[in-house]
């Protein structure tokens, strides 16, 4: 039950895109049609779900001073947390590379349909952001798996929603200067407010999102 809570919280209440505004670049750039949005969303679920537990293992057994292997070998507490960014991003970059190679071997059709979006995921801030949130919220291994898949699912929902709206709005009479990007920004803002109703806008405690 705890795990399902974390999944739902990550997917809806603390949605990566609409509550934290992470992963915006690929979200805005790849949401012109629903078809490409589905491809990117699926790849993000996959990569988030895989990198999150790997980064948990690295963070716990290599970096944290009280639990890492080096500390237990030498008896002293050795703090290696300053290596966090470099190791996390290296894990993400190599996971994306690995996922790309596996998908290419196992399912060439899926590989061609994902195309350019796989390498793009490396610089999607939602991936690194998810790992950093996982550290700062002190999740355990199981929780980090569900948090990973939950955040990925949240991204998937958000990008499909905006892509569908953008496909529809192409037939509407938007002021010329606002067409395309400008409208996408305002729509995302409105969707962000809508998603906020899931937790209820609480003016007294607006720092809840951070």
């Amino acid at each position, binding site marked *: 039950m705890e795990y399902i809570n974390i999944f739902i919280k990550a997917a809806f209440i603390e949605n990566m895109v609409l509550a934290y*505004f992470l992963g915006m670049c690929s979200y805005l750039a790849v949401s012109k049609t629903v078809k490409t949005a589905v491809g990117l969303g699926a790849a993000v679920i996959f990569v988030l779900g895989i990198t999150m537990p790997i980064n948990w293992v690295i963070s716990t057994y290599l970096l944290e001073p009280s639990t890492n292997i080096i500390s237990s070998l030498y008896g002293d507490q050795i703090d290696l947390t300053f290596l966090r960014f470099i190791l996390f991003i290296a894990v993400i970059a190599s996971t994306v590379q690995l996922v790309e190679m596996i998908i290419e071997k196992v399912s060439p059709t899926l590989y061609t349909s994902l195309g350019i979006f796989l390498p793009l995921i490396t610089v999607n801030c939602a991936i690194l952001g998810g790992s950093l949130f996982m550290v700062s919220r002190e999740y355990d291994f199981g929780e980090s798996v569900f948090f990973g898949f939950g955040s990925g699912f949240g991204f998937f929902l958000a990008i499909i929603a905006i892509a569908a709206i953008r496909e529809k709005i192409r037939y509407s009479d938007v002021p010329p200067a606002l067409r395309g990007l400008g409208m996408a920004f305002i729509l995302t803002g409105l969707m962000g407010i809508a998603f906020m109703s899931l937790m209820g806008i609480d003016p007294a405690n607006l720092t809840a999102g951070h």
Partner: protein
Amino acid sequence: MADTAQVKAKEGTFAFGKKEKQLLSDPLNDNNPITIQVLGICSALAVTTLLEKALVMAIAVIFVIAFANLFTSLLRKSIPKEVRMIVQLIIIAFLVTVVELTLKAANYPIFKELSVFIGLIITNCIVMGRLEAFAMANRPWRSFLDGIGNGLGYGFILLIIAFFRELFGKGSLLGFKIIGATPEYIINTTAGWGQTFFGWYANNNLMVLPASAMFIVGVIIWIQRSKYPRLVDAS
């Protein structure tokens, strides 16, 4: 920055002509990282609730992007194409770690406020995007200027957003109360204007929510593209 650039222009290798000037000014409008290139939105919107936070973030990004551009450009001939992404990311991650540790030592409260968003400069698409698009193909000095220009273009938009969000959301700028009643004014209404103007103003809590940043960017894009119709792309 322009001052040091002009001093160095005499040395020849650091020429500062029309082309270099354009590298600095283009990203402010015609090729703005946020409103035109759509890069770096991710960390931009989360840090704009207060002007001070936005200012620190802008300086951090200018530093990281300028030096990442410089180092990548110096190494560009010896980086194999297959591993270039990992090399670039490690250069960026190194610089971001430097920024993080410096900020942690220099101003801990601000560091706490910015939390994960300093780390997220690594995946800030502006940095990666400029490395790929510019530094891999240009000489170090120009890459450095391009980095500063793009950092300024990013910081410029960030400060505009933060200005409106802090003014209307908190009634203050850089922590100083500008509009709305201060607590002293409410207790002692005979103080006239008190310390502030518009004593009747109640803070608009919507401006504190991240969604408001999206609206402000949307409006900035609207104004920019109405003024320069050549920037419109309708897709």
